[in-house]
């Protein structure tokens, strides 16, 4: 009986996934995917992963959804879908995929009765850092290198997106995000919501030290507010060659690098924090990173330059 809600949730998730794959046109598929993102946020809550649930809602349902919806809108005016494979091939591949799923389930769910875990190790070392949210400690202390490299991945992808601009508009602003049918309610929302959203974003970042939340969740909320303003046409995307924009993109990672290297002199080596200052440094780092993330995510959604720089 106690499993009933979970069972229902799993059915919904799998249903949304099937819909996403099987939907006839791509817009329905995208909508299925966004719904899936929201359902998954619930799943993550059930798995006691509030930080991941926030990230999934912000990115899976939010940022990725917006990205895909905009792509649909622009593709619809260009080309129609293509025919899919024959029935025999479908059956064959379907069978292989099912076998694969069974294999993964067997491999992932078998194993020892008392599964190995790093949870005790995290708990034992958390006092040395002084933060209350273990996920933030993993992200910014134990596995800080992953987080640093992840920012570099984001920057590389952003440069990749920018690189798709035609030569003659390089450095110019991306295409306007303003919706053709932008209307009063949207404008109203874009005027009212950003201050609130800004506070929520900052709250998520600040709170991330001790409770669920953190840089990426907060940064994405900030990006969403900026995007909302641009969607309503109250602001235009900036020129990608603007120095301020470029400095904002590298600001977070640069601060991360400097704090990492300062560990050589102030603490016990690269990416380690001086005793007693870990929390202060991590919160400062999170603020810097969130700022860069907000700019990078928003610019990725805005796409490559499309108009000649002035």
């Amino acid at each position, binding site marked *: 009986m106690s499993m009933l809600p979970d069972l229902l949730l799993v059915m919904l998730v799998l249903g949304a996934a099937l819909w996403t794959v099987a939907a006839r046109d791509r817009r329905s598929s995208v909508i299925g995917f966004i719904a899936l993102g929201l359902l998954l946020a619930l799943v993550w809550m059930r798995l006691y992963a509030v930080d991941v649930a926030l990230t999934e809602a912000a990115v899976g349902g939010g940022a990725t959804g917006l990205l895909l919806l905009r792509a649909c809108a622009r593709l619809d005016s260009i080309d129609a879908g293509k025919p899919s494979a024959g029935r025999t091939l479908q059956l064959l591949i379907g069978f292989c995929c099912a076998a694969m799923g069974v*294999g*993964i389930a*067997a*491999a*992932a769910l*078998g*194993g*020892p009765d008392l*599964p*190995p*875990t*790093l949870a005790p*190790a*995290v708990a034992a*070392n958390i006092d040395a850092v002084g933060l209350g949210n273990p996920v933030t400690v993993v992200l910014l*202390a*134990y*596995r*800080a*290198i*992953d987080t*640093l*490299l*992840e920012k*570099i*991945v984001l*920057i*590389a*992808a952003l*440069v*990749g997106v*920018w*690189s*798709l*601009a*035609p*030569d*003659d508009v*390089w*450095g110019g602003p991306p295409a306007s995000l303003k919706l053709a049918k932008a209307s009063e309610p949207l404008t109203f929302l874009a005027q009212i919501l950003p201050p609130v959203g800004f506070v929520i974003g900052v709250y998520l970042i600040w709170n991330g030290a001790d409770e669920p939340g953190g840089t990426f969740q907060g940064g994405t909320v900030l990006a969403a507010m900026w995007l909302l303003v641009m969607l309503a046409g109250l602001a235009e995307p900036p020129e990608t060659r603007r*120095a301020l924009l*470029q*400095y904002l*993109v*590298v600001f977070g*990672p*640069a601060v991360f*690098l400097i704090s*990492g*290297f300062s*560990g*050589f002199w102030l*603490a*016990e*080596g*690269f*990416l*380690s*924090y001086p005793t007693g200052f870990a929390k202060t440094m991590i919160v400062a780092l999170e603020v810097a990173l969130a700022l860069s993330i907000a700019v990078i995510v928003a610019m990725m959604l805005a796409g490559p330059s499309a108009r000649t720089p002035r």
Partner: protein
Amino acid sequence: MTAGAATIDSGALLVVSIMLPVTGMLAVIVSPARRSEQVALVILAASLLTAVATAAEVLRTGEPIEYLLGNWRPPLGVALRADGLSVTLMVMASIVLSCVGLYASGSYLAPPDAHHSRSRTVFWTLLLGLSVALNTAFLAQDLFTLFVALELLTFSAVALVALDGRPTSLEAALRYLLLALAGSVFYLVGTAVLYGAYGRLDLSGLRQISRDDLATTFALSLMMTGLLVKTALFPMHLWLPPAHAGAPAAASALLSALVVKAPFFLIVLLWTGIAPRPFSVIAGQVLAILGMASIVFCSVMALRQSRLKLMIAYSTVAQVGYLFLVFPLTIGGTANLAWSGCVLQLVSHAFAKASMFLAAGVIAEVMGHDRISNLKGTFHAVPITLTAFALAGLSLIGLPISGGFSAKYMLLTAATEIGAWWIAGTILVGGLLAAGYVFKVLGQALAPPAEGFAAARSIPLHRELVVLVLASAAIAMGFLPLDPLPFITIGRMGLP
């Protein structure tokens, strides 16, 4: 959590080798386009020095260098570790990156007076991105950190493939990106399963506790499949030739020489470090069979190409196939010799192939096209480049004296000693086919120019010299003694 002062000093080298190009990337983004080249070249030179210093340190002490990031011990933290093999690859990668950087300096990417700086900023940023990704892949000791490095490698490489912005290049880049992402996701499934089974992802820990059970075998098979897609082994090579065809020569050189090698290195890590015994034997056989199929099939494909760049691209798939022959050869007493052959093949192919792609770039510029049937007079126009092409070709074929010869000789000896005649036969057939496609080009290019031939444009000398330097490096590897290389076994886990 205590580390001696001495280890911190040499360990800083590992940190610097990853963080130097990171700093460079950030600097290129904020610096004006005309400065981006200088920034990148300075960083590349400094990276080369760091790599050489690291190698010297490992050679001097005969011990691997380890560094705990943030001073957190694995499995909680992530360690960097430089052993003989990884510093060899690091030095190789920095040499190739520096040479390609020099080749692309000046007016290669855009005319000096060009108002638009797109290709310059993008190229230099992502060149440094590749450097970060490669050094991380060679040093990081954690399966998840390696995943992030692989993604960085993919994104940088894809954008370089798409650099010229033509539809065919974009299509090739899109296909490459989708397949590479599929590869990553397979790798990540395996990582998740391993975490569920062992509760840790650090290589040294996994090596000690890996069991021979369903989860481990399944996870490793998935991860290796994903990596095979990224390294473009037959039959998962289909993305590679089109990706090379449209990319600028400098990007193709990096893609063939370095980008496909990092996933191979990861396969070696998994195979030697984590794979339990009965599984590793079977996996080794399967990998070698795919390698052999690559050698034969893609050499034939290379022979049939009419465009120079496509020919070289197919040759890459074939030459990467040789690397996979090593796995069954390490079971017997010839393991050291086989590994030496494999590493030598990896390094000399990197130099030779980078040189060949850069040469193809020069040839295409001079002739205005890259159709093999119409290359008469190339030698007349660019003798230095063509000499380099010929030298690189020698190494690919495996003619003495060259790195390719030593490598294939070692693999051949190892194969015959344990009676693996099928591997020995493939090595010989591959050499013959390689001779076929290299001489097909040389025969055309050495012929005297037709009446009224004029070079489409002149090439700055430094670019031709870079091509020659790379080819000479491939040849120079042939002067190493034909014995197992002691250097690469320093600190290698899982090697005999």
